[in-house]
């Protein structure tokens, strides 16, 4: 899956802005193995455990460096869950599924 540029949005088909929807932002710095891995992991986790209730945005900091300061991004990749609150940051390539779920405050689907 190719990562396109800013705010390539992938929303699940029947997602609607509501309290259950997780708005997720993935910050990457160019197409590196880590970023690709992170994105793949993220997609997988979302499909498995969030079924339908998510929206992913991918932000490439190399294209938009000013966003790094605005969103307080240090580590890359970083996943930021903006909504629902509280804001959560998850750094790393998201290989630890459990940690990701804990971070997102999501109960595992199984």
């Amino acid at each position, binding site marked *: 899956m190719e990562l396109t540029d800013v705010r390539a949005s992938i929303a699940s088909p029947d997602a609607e802005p509501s309290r259950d929807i997780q708005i997720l932002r993935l910050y990457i710095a160019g197409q590196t193995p*880590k970023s690709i891995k992170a994105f793949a992991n993220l997609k997988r986790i979302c499909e498995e455990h969030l079924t339908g209730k998510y929206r992913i945005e991918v932000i490439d900091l190399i294209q938009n460096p000013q966003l790094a300061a605005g969103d307080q991004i240090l580590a890359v990749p970083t996943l930021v869950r903006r909504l629902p609150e509280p804001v959560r940051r*998850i750094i790393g*390539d998201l290989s630890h599924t459990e940690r990701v779920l*804990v971070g997102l405050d999501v109960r595992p689907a199984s």
Partner: protein
Amino acid sequence: MAIAETPGHYSSTVTSLPKSPTGIDGFDQVTAGGLPTGRPSLICGGAGCGKTLFAISFLVNGAVRFGEPGVFMSFEESSHELAQNVASLGFDLPGLIEQKKIVLDHVKIERSEIEETGDYDLEGLFIRLGFAIDSIGAKRVVLDTIESLFAGLANQSILRAELRRLFRWLKDKGVTAIITGERGEGTLTRQGLEEYVSDAVILLDHRVTEQISTRRLRIVKYRGSAHGTNEYPFLIDEDGIAVLPVTSMGLTHAASSERISSGIPRLDTMLDGHGYFRGSTVLVSGTAGAGKSSVAAHFLDAACRRGERCLAFVFEESPAQVVRNMRSIGIDLQPWVDRGLLEFHAARPSLHGLEMHLSRMHRAIDRFQPSVVVIDPVSSLLTVAEETDVQATLTRLVDYLKLKGVTALLTSLTHGRSEGEQTDVAISSIVDTWLLLVTLESSGERNRGLYVLKSRGMGHSNQIREFLLTDHGVELVDVYAGPSGVLTGSARLTQEAQERAAVLVQEQELDRKERTLERLRAAFEEAELAALRAKFDAEQADLAIGIDENRSRATRLRTDRHDIAQSRGADAAGSGNGRKQRGKV
């Protein structure tokens, strides 16, 4: 800027290492140029040591004075807090940000918000920093304090690897960077940053001894450049940071031949007729109440009259008190204060540490540019520091004043019994002229005397003078030095009165004798005359008698002859021819 350049052994090092000036008073001198250009330097120290202040000064001075924009990446304080904290120093951070000379970036790391889920790197940080640098073309960067990352992120090995990468990256970017770090137990920084940043390491220290706090700075390491390894005291006040190099003062000041009056004419005559050398240092020492401040006040008054600017540092009285006290001896300093020729700086010695005092004096002197400085008394600095420290401080101050050609008068209190040639603060060898005020006790009173103990470069009187504080100023009077010793005060007055009386008596005696002589002479003359007359009369009488006798004898002789002649039948005529005539009988 403040402290003059001295050709010391620093500037002669052949360094191809370019340096970026920090603009911090004294620091650039101690490092012979500033921080290494294009390299990261580590500033470490305990909490509240002044690391952030140092770093922000470096940045702001760079932007304002050296034309180098800078980025301040703060891991602790928010931009707003930072701007507020430095506003009191006169740093207008919001203004500089607006002019695109400074970028403030606050990196917030909330541990609670972060979950680590695999491999990552800190490229975000690099991108942020790079973006900030590129946005204004920054040449200077501060990271304060990067150790906060260790608190926020758990994976130390990633962190350390990335830090190593960061410092290389900074070097590649060609920016001069300051990294700040908290002092660790037994290590320079808690997280061992000194491993990565090794071009220059500066340690800031903040000590409290005997309730006085002093700050010290030490250059632990400076690769590629000879540097002083001593501790340099520095201070932070409303003007920012200033470092005071202790040993960078060489003895290279010029010596003027101009002489200026001390304000006391008789004292000038004691000093070879002209007074002090301009640019020299004068010490006036004495016990309490001896009159040291009065000598100082005369000096100030005389200088102000010449139109010269004067600065007076007083440690024991308020300026108003000084002015009032000096009025009682006929010196009015208030007009000079009003005209701006005389400025007082009064502070209790215990108000600051010694270094702060020295720095304040430096700054006041720089700002006011006086030609005369009075410090009254220097010995009160002993209440806040050891004698060796005070001596070192005063030496530096005196050197500084000589370099600027400022004439200085210091007063010093000596304590009692064996008063005299031991000052409590042993600076008598640094000063050029030393006036000693002594007290002379005799017959129930204490009088003051003044000696010129030494005065380099000129002949001076070695006689003590009695030192009087009158309502028209200080007067120096010759003492009475006689067989009974030196007398001053009322004893002197008594003695002088006695002498005058004695002289009077003698004169009268003389008069009397003269008159006697006159009488004698007159008498003598008369007597002589009488005797002579008597003698004359007697002789006259004698003479008369003699003549009579002669006459009568002559008559008798004639008669006798006549008789004889008759008896012989001679002519009665007695013609007296006497010629014998023959034939006639």
